[in-house]
């Protein structure tokens, strides 16, 4: 029951997004086809094609009917047609999305994990040298913008040392399969991933460290000590477990920003993800593609948040989504 409650709110959010995505081009002044396809595309179109498209999008019909046919088209995976890529928008996005998910997903996972571990250790040793070094180091690291770190990494490992590829997600036309492909993918992934992790780790680290410091002052830590728990157990099982909660919330929020936030990194490393796609579509004024990316990313973010919510109820028994 409680889970259904949260699912319903996600559904409402999803429908709202659909409606916005549907309404925006139609609210723009002038021909909706122009809003959907852009001026250049419209000029290039034959009047027959225009008429066909107008009919296909039911642009003559009342808004309600239009929305129904919009939804129907979506159900079939029809998100429009990208003239720039000369392919359906859906196919274009689906080709890039896995790379971004791989990059961003791994980056969030690794930066959260490392951030938590470092935060716990640092918080437990508050005021000691280890803590001070970590704190100063990570805070100064977070001062660099992500693309700058990306460029530095690229220059050092890619250009100077030559041990990492300069661009792409796989070696093109190598025809690798199986393990070789996997290694190739990881090889290309390393530098952009490292750049993203380095930038994102500080937030998680600081949050964990601060929560850790307050949690260590809680009465239940004293109870754990009085039980005779080892230091490691107190650090992780008692204090650490409690410090995890805000970090998970933060990770959920981060994930939302990361999909488009990876834009710079993807461009710097020419990584074929959604970020690069969005950048190119902006340059080319590929409106259908932009709308498709908007819709796709919001769906992914909604899904991710929903999963975080589910995870949260497992992590903290005090949270219930009952109304």
């Amino acid at each position: 029951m409680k889970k259904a409650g949260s699912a319903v709110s996600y559904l409402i959010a999803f429908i709202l997004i659909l409606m916005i995505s549907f309404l925006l081009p139609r609210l723009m002044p002038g021909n909706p086809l122009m809003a959907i396809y852009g001026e250049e595309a419209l000029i290039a179109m034959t009047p027959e094609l225009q008429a066909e498209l107008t009919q296909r999008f039911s642009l003559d019909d009342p808004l309600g009917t239009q929305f129904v046919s919009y939804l129907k088209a979506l159900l079939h995976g029809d998100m429009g047609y990208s003239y720039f890529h000369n392919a359906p928008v859906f196919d274009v996005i689906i080709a890039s999305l896995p790379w971004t998910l791989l990059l961003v997903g791994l980056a969030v996972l690794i930066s959260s994990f490392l951030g938590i571990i470092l935060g716990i250790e640092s918080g437990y040793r508050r005021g000691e040298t280890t803590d001070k070094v970590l704190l100063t180091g990570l805070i100064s690291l977070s001062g660099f913008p992500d693309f700058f770190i990306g460029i530095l990494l690229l220059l050092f490992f890619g250009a100077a040392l030559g041990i990492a590829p300069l661009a792409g997600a796989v070696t093109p036309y190598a025809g690798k399969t199986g393990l070789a492909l996997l290694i190739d993918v990881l090889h290309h992934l390393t530098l952009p991933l490292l750049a993203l992790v380095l930038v994102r780790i500080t937030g998680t680290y600081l949050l964990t460290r601060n929560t850790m410091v307050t949690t260590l002052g809680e009465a239940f830590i004293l109870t754990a000590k009085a039980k005779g728990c080892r230091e490691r157990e107190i650090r992780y099982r008692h204090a650490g477990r409690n410090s995890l909660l805000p970090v998970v919330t933060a990770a959920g929020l981060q994930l939302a920003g990361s999909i488009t936030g990876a834009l710079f990194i993807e461009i710097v490393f020419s990584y074929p993800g959604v970020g690069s796609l969005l950048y190119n579509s902006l340059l080319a004024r590929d409106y259908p593609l932009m709308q498709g990316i908007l819709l796709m990313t919001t769906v992914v973010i909604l899904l991710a948040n929903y999963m975080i919510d589910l995870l949260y109820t497992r992590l903290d028994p005090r949270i219930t989504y009952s109304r």
Partner: protein
Amino acid sequence: MLEIKNLKVSYNELNILKGIDLSLNKGESLAVIGETGAGKTTLSLSIMGLIEGHCTGEILFQGENLLSLPEDELRLLRGRRIAMVFQDVEAALHPLYTIRQQIIEAILVHGEKDRDFAAEHTRQLLARVGLDERRGDSYPHQLSGGEKQKALICIALANDPDVLILDEPTAALDALTKAEIINLLRKEAKERITLVITHDIDAAAKLAERIAVMYAGRILEMGPTEELLEQPMHPYTRGLLRSYPNMTTTKDLQGIPGRMSHRVEGCPFHTRCTQKIAVCGHDVPELQKKNSRYLACHRGGIIPLLEVKNISSNIDKVEILHSVDINLYEGETLALVGESGSGKTTLAKTIMGLFTAKQGEIFLEEKPVIQRKKEFFERVQMVFQNPGESISHRMNVYQAVKEPLDIHGSRASESEKQEKVKKVLDEVELTGDDEYLKKYPHHLSGGEAQRVAIARALVLDPKLIIADEPTSALDASIQAKILRLFLDLQEERGLALLLITHDIALARKVSDRMAVMLQGTIVEEGPTSEIVNNPLHPYTKCLIEVAPTMSREISEPLETNSREEDHETETDFQKGSSDSQQNCPFIRRCPHPLPRCFQDKPELKTCSVHRVACFRHTVHWPT
């Protein structure tokens, strides 16, 4: 065996514990009481080895000094041999694990038992503390305060420890839950060393055989629970008991003046003590053994301010007082109750030196009173029964109240004296304006005259006030204010009060002890609450029977066995006829006299916490 020797703990140069010595054997229990910040929790944490501060001294557990053990070995003792229940019930359990997981962890963490044993033992523990088996799978936020406390007790008991430390085990629990937890703890504390840390005197009394009173990192008094609660020796202990609301004592609540500070030279309590002397300010008193009690006080505990020993007094060759013995301690109210003509006023006037005693001695502050000079009257003042008569008709209010200041050669200027007079008049709820100051006694109402008389007695700041029916002429509302004033002065300056009254209901609210007088003798004496709730002497019983209540019920007049025989003896007996020397003074009205009562006069003998002069109660007690 747990022994603490000269334990000192300091945080950042601030000494929290300043030399604690304790020793506890298996099966013994000790409660440490005191105000917040006294160092009680620091003491318990230092035994657990969980103190952040710097510790010196020794904590010997079965011969091993815990303070010098490495952390690894200490960890193995914690929760296994020495366990603790922490005070903050709401926060002491981990919010993210079930009760069962937390209890099981307490067993497994010592690596001696396997998971199956731990699960089974946890089941038994839950049953033992009276928690439902299913509650084990609940998270702390799903449990009530009492259930959480039980879960914490389970964790502490998980490895059957030798030492159980309970820090405020009943704070934040409602009365019924508290009673349940106390029952449970009392059962579980057997066969162990139990240390209870609490400010709840009731919990301390119920959980421990001995009580130690802690103040600013030192133990001020320690002794068997019942003895210490019945007869506190240290002024601080008495202050704690007086400020603790309970169903036993009847006196109005009184606090302790001032605040606790850890940075005090000399006796830590001397800044708040009402009987301090010079030495208290620079020497720390040692905790010394006194019979079954330990006490740290330069003055040997609460001092007897006034001791009346074996006083007999005559008026016109008729003996009014027959070897009366009373003690009045510093800062204490002793109510002298009894019917009119029982000799109460005579006793007061004898103390003041207005009548000469035929025999006996009087001591003021442990020094015999031979001649009453100015020093005596600076310390002792009396408020007389008849206010209209006790103020000179030739003096106006201002002169009457100021006169003691003049007599005692106060060096204050006239304006300072006037200031003082006005302040005292204000304290007794009289206006100090010029017009009023010029009034003469015959202008005043009875209540006003009485308050002027009280103001006159207070103006010298005496240590002892003998008040003879001080409020009998006043409205109840003014009476309440005057008595509150007395009690406040008692709290602030340790004013001792000998309150002579026939109103036992009044005495019940303002006195610590009560002495019942009949025909010139004390027939019963003891703590007020005891006298009122459990009177032993039939005369006391009958006084209590007729004391004011707020109901329409009336009590039957005392059935006397002499009534049918002889009506005349009544008047005879009230005058204090000479034959009362040969038998019990209450014999004519006593409902159950013994044959012996007709032949002998009973002496005042100790019977539990009372002293009573009645053969029915003293005959069974070895003399």
